[in-house]
């Protein structure tokens, strides 16, 4: 028996139109919808069979894969949680030995954070964004696929380490000195550091393309100030990922280098400090909570008004609250370190920020409650999960404010109270909304309506099981039970609470299993869903169910503003109808106004993302196995894959402008300068700049806080070193000039010459940097020397990337891929060259200042 679909089908009109009321684009002439569908499906569908599995780059396929894989990892993490609860059910639990228990709780946290929560939100974003914004795909389809393969390979290695008995065992935040090579001599910690870094490639890839897709690939004439709230939430998430992940990536690299080569970043005897790891980790770790929460809140802001048959209350206030959250969440990280001995004033800064961040969160909660109050709530399954969110998340938020107060934090630190709080926040703020989202969008995913009753039963099991497990854990914590203990023989007063928590934990697990069963039943046996079953106004429902590979037969514009335009869009009356050139085309806009700028031609199915992730993985695998001599092979393979990546991007001929609508023709992206790739590079360099800033923070932090400073006298203050450094900077500056001249003279032979000069300048700079490396002090001597080596390594890495881009521009010029209209890779080269020059100049100034002041 299937659940009855909502009756009436009345579509809610958005209070404010999503498009600029002053804009207009004439409609295209209607065509036969079936012919358009066949034409588009031929261009956009994955290849058939197994080859299609490995070559797909379509956002629909990749997004669903991300979500399905993350649910598999969620199930694995859930089984580990059940093992933990079984062990803690009695005070002398003998179910697991301590060593295995350490691995299991570490893996539970790591899997849930890095292999479930983040990939789940990435999957939802990749699958949903083009649909809800009115595009045909994400801005960089191959990047989606690359991210997925990196996630799958890295996650698989991390999980298999548990089977091999060498899983990480130092807690999911891997504090040093516990995680250094002295106290964790095996590869357990290396699995975490390298595996998580490999997986985070997918997070960075997703962040770049979510940012660019929202800014540049919305429906024509949809200004930022009118786009669906989901767009704002995911834009905030993506920017936070760009800024939040680099500190963790840097910390992981530094700790892995310390473990592998004894460079003392965190060794207090040689100028390092374990607190540096904590700062870098929590600079990521606290924003991470909001990175997880924001997409979930986006789902809530989308679902609540529709389930309440009204419009969202306070659009502007919610957007402002998102902006406030994005920024404030980066001023809280030290509240995870309140007990490590930080001066009172610093504690007070972070305590105040921790309390203040409750305000934008509360604004959103009140907006949602007001929306419910204003509407007529329909308690369908998604709405039940929304109610579960309210109950759970608000309680978690309140205990969060308690923990933001330093005196209480000192008492509750590292107890089960904190475990209870974080589960209330993460399950309340992410899992319940995601379950609501899956329930809500399943008809669009599989085209079927759910089987009646199963979902409700799963919801109640999850809700009751969750609160039975974790509410009591607050009490266990207040009674003094620390986190991460395997047995507690001398504390019988904790036993009954733990036993009840364990029983309810099993109930919750049964609920999640029933949820998964419900989804499978719906997919296989559910009745056919009709179009737009919820009567939603958003563009994600302006398409057939299940969603076709191309989303829209023609793209929405001011005359097709919401889901009511389903048929005109299917008939090709919107913009850029069909695929007459057999190219995967979507519109690219001016970021702010939403004015159409050009037509972006997206990549078709290819094995390249799979090969590239395998090449990157071979590097990580070699380092993990300790076969360091083999690691350069992985780097070379990655460079070759990167070269191939650019090889199929250009065009050797000028293309005529494309007719998008009557009176509106636009160039293809090869013939514009402000391409999606250029915007993506800016986003990537934002993340890159954050990583560099984190490195500078490390230098500053150790200089003023670590006890074993000042550092010993260095051997750098010599004239040859100064001359070599000046030569490197001068060559980089010449490269920058050449990059601009190569673009300016791209239609003449001089353009090729300048590209060659630029490449030569890059190589000269790289040779000079290599010369500087020869003069460095031994990095194992002191943290200052180690950091200088890392700074130099940063410059060399960017030099190699920049040289590759210069070579690409030279090849473009010589291969006829540039003309007056086509610019090739030069604009991207310029951005990297500027970044390389700028960061290198700052680095040189920093080292010079250290030498002068020492």
């Amino acid at each position: 028996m299937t659940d009855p679909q909502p009756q009436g089908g009345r579509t809610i009109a958005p209070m404010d139109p999503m498009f600029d009321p002053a804009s207009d684009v004439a409609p295209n002439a209607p065509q036969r919808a079936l012919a358009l569908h066949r034409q588009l499906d031929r261009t956009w569908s994955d290849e058939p069979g197994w080859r299609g599995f490995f070559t797909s780059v379509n956002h629909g396929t990749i997004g669903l894969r991300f979500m399905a894989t993350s649910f598999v990892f969620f199930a694995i993490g859930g089984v580990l949680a059940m093992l933990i609860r079984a062990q803690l059910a009695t005070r002398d639990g003998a179910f697991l030995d301590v060593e295995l228990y350490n691995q299991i709780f570490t893996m539970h946290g790591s899997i849930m954070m890095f292999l479930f929560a983040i990939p789940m939100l990435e999957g939802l974003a990749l699958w949903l964004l083009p649909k809800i914004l009115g595009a045909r795909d994400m801005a960089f389809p191959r990047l989606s696929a690359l991210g997925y393969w990196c996630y799958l390979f890295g996650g698989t290695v991390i999980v298999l380490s548990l089977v091999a008995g060498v899983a990480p065992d130092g807690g999911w935040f891997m504090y040093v000195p516990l995680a250094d090579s002295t106290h964790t001599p095996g590869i357990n910690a290396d699995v975490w550091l390298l595996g998580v870094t490999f997986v985070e490639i997918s997070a960075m890839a997703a962040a770049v393309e979510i940012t660019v897709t929202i800014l540049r690939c919305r429906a024509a004439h949809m200004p930022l100030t009118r786009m669906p709230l989901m767009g704002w939430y995911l834009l905030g998430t993506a920017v936070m990922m760009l800024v939040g992940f680099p500190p963790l990536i840097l910390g992981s690299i530094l700790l892995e280098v310390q473990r592998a080569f004894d460079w003392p970043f965190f060794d207090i005897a040689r100028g390092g400090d374990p607190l540096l790891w904590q700062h870098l980790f929590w600079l990521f770790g606290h924003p991470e909570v909001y990175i997880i929460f924001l997409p979930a809140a986006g789902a809530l802001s989308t679902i609540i008004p529709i389930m309440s048959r009204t419009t969202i209350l306070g659009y502007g206030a919610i957007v402002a609250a998102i902006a406030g959250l994005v920024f404030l969440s980066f001023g809280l990280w030290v509240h995870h370190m309140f007990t490590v001995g930080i001066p009172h004033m610093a504690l007070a800064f972070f305590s105040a920020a921790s309390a203040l961040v409750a305000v934008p969160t509360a604004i959103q909660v009140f907006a949602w409650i007001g929306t419910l109050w204003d509407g007529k709530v329909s308690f369908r399954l998604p709405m039940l999960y929304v109610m579960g969110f309210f109950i759970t998340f608000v309680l978690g938020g309140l205990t969060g404010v308690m923990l933001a107060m330093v005196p209480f934090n000192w008492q509750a630190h590292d107890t089960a109270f904190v475990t209870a709080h974080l589960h209330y926040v993460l399950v309340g703020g992410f899992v319940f909304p995601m379950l609501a989202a899956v329930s809500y969008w399943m008809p669009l995913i599989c085209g079927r309506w759910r089987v009646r009753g199963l979902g409700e039963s799963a919801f109640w099991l999850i809700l009751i099981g969750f609160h039975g497990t974790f509410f009591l854990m607050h009490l266990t914590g207040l009674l003094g039970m620390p986190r991460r203990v395997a047995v507690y023989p001398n504390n019988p007063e904790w036993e009954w609470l733990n036993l009840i928590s364990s029983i309810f934990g099993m109930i919750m697990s049964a609920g999640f299993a029933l949820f998964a069963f419900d989804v499978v039943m719906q997919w296989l046996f559910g009745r056919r869903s009709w179009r737009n079953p919820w009567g939603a106004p958003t563009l994600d429902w302006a398409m057939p169910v299940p969603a076709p590979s191309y989303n829209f037969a023609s793209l929405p514009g001011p005359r097709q503003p919401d889901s009511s335009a389903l048929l005109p869009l299917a008939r090709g009356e919107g913009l850029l109808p069909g695929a007459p050139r057999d190219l995967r085309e979507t519109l690219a806009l001016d970021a702010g106004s939403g004015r159409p700028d050009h037509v972006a031609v997206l990549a078709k199915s290819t094995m390249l993302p799979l090969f590239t992730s395998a090449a990157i993985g071979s590097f990580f695998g070699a380092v993990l196995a300790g076969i360091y001599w083999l690691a350069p092979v992985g780097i070379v393979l990655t460079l070759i894959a990167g070269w191939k990546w650019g090889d199929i991007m250009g065009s050797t001929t000028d293309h005529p402008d494309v007719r998008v609508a009557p009176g509106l023709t636009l160039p293809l992206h090869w013939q514009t300068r402000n391409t999606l790739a250029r915007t993506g590079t800016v986003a990537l360099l934002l993340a890159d700049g954050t990583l560099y800033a984190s490195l500078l923070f490390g230098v500053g932090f150790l200089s003023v806080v670590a006890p074993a400073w000042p550092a010993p006298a260095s051997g750098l203050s010599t004239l040859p070193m100064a001359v070599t450094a000046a030569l490197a900077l001068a060559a980089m500056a010449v490269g920058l000039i050449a990059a601009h001249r190569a673009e300016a003279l791209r239609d003449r032979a001089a353009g090729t010459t300048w590209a060659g000069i630029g490449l030569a300048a890059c190589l000269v700079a790289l040779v000079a940097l290599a010369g500087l490396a020869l003069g460095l002090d031994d990095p194992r001597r002191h943290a200052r020397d180690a950091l200088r080596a890392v700074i130099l390594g940063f410059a060399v890495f960017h030099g190699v990337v920049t040289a590759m881009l210069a070579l690409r521009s030279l090849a473009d010029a010589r291969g006829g891929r540039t003309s007056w209209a086509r610019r090739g890779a030069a604009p991207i080269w310029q951005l990297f060259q500027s970044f390389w020059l700028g960061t290198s100049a700052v680095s040189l100034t920093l080292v010079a200042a250290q030498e002068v002041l020492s």
Partner: protein
Amino acid sequence: MSWLWRALAGPILWAAMFLLVYALHGAGCNLGWTDRPAPIADWHHMAMWLAWGAGLILHLVLIRVMPAGRGRPRQLITMGAWIGFVSTLVTLFPVIATSTCA
């Protein structure tokens, strides 16, 4: 995009002020500024007070000059400017009262 920058100017200034005052706090403790008397309190406090005060004034300037356009875009810019002001006011308020390096 200029609209987005206007809307985010307040929070960006807050981030810069937070960074500056936190850095001044760390540097002052390391360099012993608490031991250098100033006209009021010590140089460590003075440096942080000056930075905080200058930041608040800049925020007020942003509130005054940033709003542009009409309707929702203007409202969002105004809200962004106020978010920055309140954030700086609250999160850096401890420079008034709390001891510094203990």
